[in-house]
């Protein structure tokens, strides 16, 4: 089982855009540059992306964003957070939908995520660490071992 997981992670890491170094790949969890929070633990991010927590400590609504299901960053992020690929989460989202809670909105590219996050209070997304620019703030960095 562990060997299978390791193999999957290696394949995913190989599919991710190269950062030009041999270290672990990094996925940045981002929010707007002026968001009051400066960091967020992985456990809290997990709850936000499962829509179990919808309001931040300041009382604003979280708006989690996903990349498309076949995007390698989405797949690595899902595996790192939930130990499941996005398609394996579909049964969970069907159950949530039955209770009136839709899954996070999907945006088509990292640039779309950056733009949405930068202009929408409470929006939270994830992108390759190398794609981060001053429009957004990094709340957490998820390491994906190569």
């Amino acid at each position, binding site marked *: 089982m562990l060997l299978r997981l390791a193999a999957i992670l290696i394949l995913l890491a190989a599919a991710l855009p190269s950062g030009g170094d041999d270290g672990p790949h990094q996925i940045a969890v981002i929010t707007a540059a002026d968001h009051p929070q400066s960091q967020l633990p992985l456990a809290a991010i997990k709850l936000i992306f499962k829509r179990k927590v919808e*309001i931040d400590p300041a009382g604003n609504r979280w708006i989690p964003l996903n990349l498309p*299901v076949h995007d390698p960053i989405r797949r690595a992020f899902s595996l790192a957070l939930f*130990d499941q690929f996005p398609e394996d989460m579909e049964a969970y989202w*069907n159950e949530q*939908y*039955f209770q009136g809670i*839709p899954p996070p909105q999907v945006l088509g590219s990292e640039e779309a995520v950056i733009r949405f996050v930068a202009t929408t209070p409470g929006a939270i997304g994830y992108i390759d660490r190398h794609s981060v620019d001053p429009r957004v703030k990094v709340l957490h960095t998820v390491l994906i071992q190569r």
Partner: protein
Amino acid sequence: MLIARRVWAILLGLAASSLACLAAADEIPTEGYRLGQGYPINSTGLRIGGYTSLHAEAPRNGPWRFELSDLSLFLTWQANDRLRFFSELEAGDAFTATEGGRSGGHEARFELERLYGDLLINGSATIRFGKFLTPVGRWNLLHADPLVWTSTRPVATENLFSKHATGLMLFGNLPLFERRLEYQVYADLTRSLDPHRSENPFDNAAGVHALYGLSERLQIGASYLSFELNADRRRRQHLVGLEAIWRHHRYELSTEWVYRTPQDQGPSLWQGFAQGVAPIAGDWYAVGRYELFEQRGDLGTGQAGVFGLAYRPLPPLVVKFEYRLGTHNQQTAPDGFYTSFAVLF
């Protein structure tokens, strides 16, 4: 007949959309419709969807029956950052055909299955007001045919308490030992939102339900409920429930048990089930369930075993075939063959 024609027209439309979605399952749109997740209407905050199911049954000691069991429509509205509404309107038994030759929509009934507003207080608490599913066990909360593995419902999930409550609920999750405890505390306060009355409604009820994830794969839960049923107002009952579910990849084990005892005189009753699901080939699954249920009167303690297959090519779409066999079960869970098709749309 007019109702039947309309229902069939809707069904054909749904089947066509299901097939289209099957064909396009690999194309994930960034916006718009996805099977099993409803249709978001632009930026209005509205989302429409629902589910439907067709059932056929051939009890060992009775006539066969075919029915369009459920046609449920969901409407969700995210009014603002903190307020959202949800409704489920259900047309039950909209079309039936039986061995005796009767057919049509004679038994069709429309019911407001759920109608509530959620006010998000903070990250740990939300207030719900309206008509909601009674949080006893997992099955009652997720009972829709596309979400469960068998055409038949376990006896323990429907006879000892009302499936709905109308009132107030506080729910959310709290940190506990580095994990989260999901909780629901509720009170049945009014019937004003449920004028047509649910089946076997509460008259006065309050309860709590808690769910804790011991790991990513294993969740355990407990329920307590104190209530009077409208049909039996002078008898207060207390109900305790226990549940667990383990999921790993495509395997699943689950169990639910309830114990109901009257405050004064009368019999106490135990009911419960244990169910297992395992992939066998491709999108086919083997399903097995054992049920044990004490019953009122002279019916004795019933047992039932359900053995079946489920074909689930996509999570929101399932076809099920099963045979149920038991003892002292003819009143509540008769022996026979059951099959169904269900889709969440």
